[in-house]
């Protein structure tokens, strides 16, 4: 009964989405306030019914209703409750339902926080989001019904993929989707601006906090995914340049470009046409990412072709959204007026350089991701583009962008003085160069890439410091008062930039100074790695809720002093019989000590064991968290809230920008 209820709720949600899409858009075009007023309640109703459908599916998972095919395939009676809940979005169908639910959430958020917008703008934004909901709901109902019954019901489920049974995976998909789908808001704003022909500065101010929040969520989602891969795949890697990772990284790169070009459009009225185009590109890449990961095209181009209904639908949907929005853009963009001018050295020009470089980096990732698919689809053979390609292209492209990151925030809008910036940053450049040259010497040998990383990290950090010093020179009151008085937009930007510096420093160390060893260990034997001694104390039998495991004990010590006792596991899951390596990690701020069990070698209890020393790995996650916090902080800046209360602010700006 419950699954049918969910199915029914999904149908109602589709009808409401149709209402949410059509009536407000028609109303906005005709200036009909009654039709426009439908937007908000329709969006909220659509969200409510999608949420009901989602709750029904979650209920089926929690109560082990194996008469639902989706549940039977992806869950298991012995699966712990929390993983039964997350199994709801572990499957293709469930994850698309989560996608629609997230879109409903964002639409509802827009419907609540859009009181300050002109009525036709709000109606158009919500209407466009409704159109996207229609597409995805129709896709769910016609090709991927999550409530499909299984007759006769299965005795038990197939279990969730053991790799996904990890708490990093509990929040990774929802956070990632909050980011992906959040860019739909920026997209809807861009389309609404194109439809209305009012591509003024106001829309940049309206869509900016939404975009920044979506970007922060996406950053968090990618970080969680990387953290999960690092611990759970058992190989100590944190980024593989795998197509599924690139699928989320490409919208992130474009989104990063967008939040920077939105800054120029909002503050200076420049780059208007480009910013609109970028907003369309970012969401198109989010859709492409969903398509790549969810259509099965990555695992096999041919498997994708053998299930034509799903593939054709997504491909058609992509074509309509991307083609339609670009056509609208081509028609409307020439009418956009250019903003005020700027010189070759100004904050505008530096942000422009940021955008150009990010786009080139995006292009290289896109090429490396899609080229193997293209070659395979053409029947020209199978190839793979490995991490060396991406590292060889991405790192040299991003290095100048990171260098400019130190200058951009210090340069004035419109016309900055190069000599002035040079005078202010001479010391910083010297200190950063010294750091880059000397710091690697304190580590395990000199490495040019590590040196470059340290230089850039130090440079950005010092630039952040310089920006604070600059701001604190002026104004009155104590230091704390002044710090508290700085706008949140400023704080957010500096925190995010600092996060980038922390992340770059972490990458520079972990990519160049990590060590690992595969060793054969007998009970009582020991192995050395990076100054740590690992003593193997054998394994014991250990029973988990839905698996059996051999649980190893390794004592880690340094210079004779005990550091940690680690318990890596080798699990066999009951339902599928598949094996899984559960690594054990002892983290601290400067390094992770990481051990994973290989195989048992003999009856005496000898095992192959993999030992890792990962210096500075945690700086990556810290850096990303700084960016996330920075993003939320910038989005909560006072000026967006003032605009909420006083609608004359955007108008005044509109006049100024035109």
């Amino acid at each position: 009964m419950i699954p049918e209820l969910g199915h029914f709720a999904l149908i109602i949600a589709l009808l409401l989405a149709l209402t949410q899409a059509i009536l407000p858009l028609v109303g906005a075009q005709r200036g009909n306030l009654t039709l426009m007023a439908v937007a908000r309640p329709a969006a909220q109703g659509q969200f409510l019914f999608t949420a009901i459908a989602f709750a029904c599916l979650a209920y089926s998972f929690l109560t082990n209703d194996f008469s639902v095919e989706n549940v039977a395939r992806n869950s298991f009676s012995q699966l712990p409750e929390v993983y039964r809940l997350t199994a709801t979005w572990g499957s293709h169908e469930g994850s698309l339902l989560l996608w629609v639910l997230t879109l409903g959430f964002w639409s509802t958020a827009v419907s609540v926080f859009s009181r300050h917008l002109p009525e036709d703008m709000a109606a158009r934004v919500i209407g466009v989001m409704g159109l996207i909901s229609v597409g995805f709901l129709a896709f769910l109902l016609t090709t991927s019904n999550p409530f499909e019954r299984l007759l006769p019901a299965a005795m038990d489920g197939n279990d969730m993929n053991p790799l996904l049974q990890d708490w990093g995976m509990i929040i990774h998909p929802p956070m990632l989707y909050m980011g992906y789908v959040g860019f739909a808001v920026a997209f809807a704003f861009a389309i609404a601006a194109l439809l209305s022909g009012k591509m003024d500065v106001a829309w940049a101010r309206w869509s900016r906090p939404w975009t920044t929040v979506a970007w922060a969520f996406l950053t968090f989602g990618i970080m969680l995914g990387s953290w999960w891969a690092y611990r759970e795949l058992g190989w100590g890697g944190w980024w593989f340049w795998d197509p599924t990772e690139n699928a989320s990284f490409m919208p992130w790169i474009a989104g990063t470009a967008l939040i920077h070009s939105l800054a120029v459009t909002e503050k200076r009225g420049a780059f208007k046409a480009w910013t609109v185009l970028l907003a369309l590109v970012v969401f198109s890449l989010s859709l492409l990412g969903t398509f790549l990961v969810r259509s099965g095209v990555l695992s096999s181009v041919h498997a994708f072709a053998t299930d034509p209904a799903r593939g054709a639908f997504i491909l058609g949907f992509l074509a309509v959204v991307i083609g339609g929005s670009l056509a609208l853009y081509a028609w409307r963009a020439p009418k956009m007026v250019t903003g005020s001018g700027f010189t070759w050295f100004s904050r505008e020009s530096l942000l422009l350089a940021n955008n150009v470089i990010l786009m080139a980096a995006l292009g290289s990732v896109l090429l490396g991701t899609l080229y193997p698919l293209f070659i395979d689809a053409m029947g020209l053979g199978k190839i793979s583009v490995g991490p060396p390609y991406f590292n060889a292209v991405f790192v040299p492209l991003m290095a100048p962008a990171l260098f400019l990151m130190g200058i951009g925030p210090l340069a004035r809008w419109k016309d900055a003085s190069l000599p002035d910036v040079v005078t202010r940053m001479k010391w910083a450049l010297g200190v950063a160069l010294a750091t880059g040259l000397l710091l690697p010497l304190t580590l395990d040998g000199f490495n040019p890439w590590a040196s470059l990383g340290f230089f850039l990290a130090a440079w950005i950090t010092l630039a952040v410091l310089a920006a604070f010093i600059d701001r604190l020179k002026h104004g009155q009151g104590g230091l704390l008062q002044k710090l508290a008085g700085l706008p949140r937009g400023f704080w957010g930007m500096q925190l995010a930039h600092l996060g980038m510096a922390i992340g770059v420093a972490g990458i520079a160390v972990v990519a160049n100074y990590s060590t690992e060893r595969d060793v054969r260990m007998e009970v009582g034997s020991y192995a050395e790695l990076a100054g740590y001694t690992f003593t193997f104390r054998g394994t014991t039998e250990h029973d988990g809720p839905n698996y059996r495991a051999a649980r190893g004990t390794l004592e880690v010590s340094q210079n004779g002093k005990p550091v940690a006792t680690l318990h890596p596991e080798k699990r066999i899951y009951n339902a599928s019989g598949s094996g899984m390596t559960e690594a054990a990690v002892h983290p601290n701020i400067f390094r992770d000590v990481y051990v994973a069990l290989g195989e048992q070698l003999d009856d005496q209890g000898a095992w192959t064991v993999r030992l890792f020393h990962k210096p500075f790995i945690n700086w990556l996650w810290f850096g990303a968290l700084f960016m996330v916090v920075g993003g939320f902080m910038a989005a909560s800046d006072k000026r967006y809230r003032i605009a909420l209360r006083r609608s004359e602010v955007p108008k005044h700006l509109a006049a100024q920008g035109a």
Partner: protein
Amino acid sequence: MKPRHRKLALIVLVLAVLGVAVALVLNAFNSNLVFFFSPTQVANGEAPTSRAFRIGGLVEEGSTRREADGLTTRFVVTDTAKSMPVTYTGILPDLFKEGKGVVAEGRLGPDGLFAATQVLAKHDENYMPPEAASAIEQAQKAQLTVVE
């Protein structure tokens, strides 16, 4: 800056970055593309001996042997028509099993032994790595043609 100059500067900037990007891509593409060969193709001498490539197929039943050091494993990869010996030093992934699909990256030695640097494991229990599946499919198709 005048609009005309700005446009010119923009074009120069875009072209410069694009040029650098294209140079980097071309340079990296040539040396970092990893091609895939099935055991049949390797047996026919189609695979290069000078660079790394990937092979795929099934791990032949009963072929896995561990060397005395406990870390080096030898096994045979087959596409059901031809098979080739592989050696790998290190811990094998969880999903490595005899009779199951496998993809390995490495170099072909003069003795015909494939020295793998990486054994890939990004597939689950029921699912065959696409390269391995296609290798077997190709080999079986070829055999059918011979029988006919």
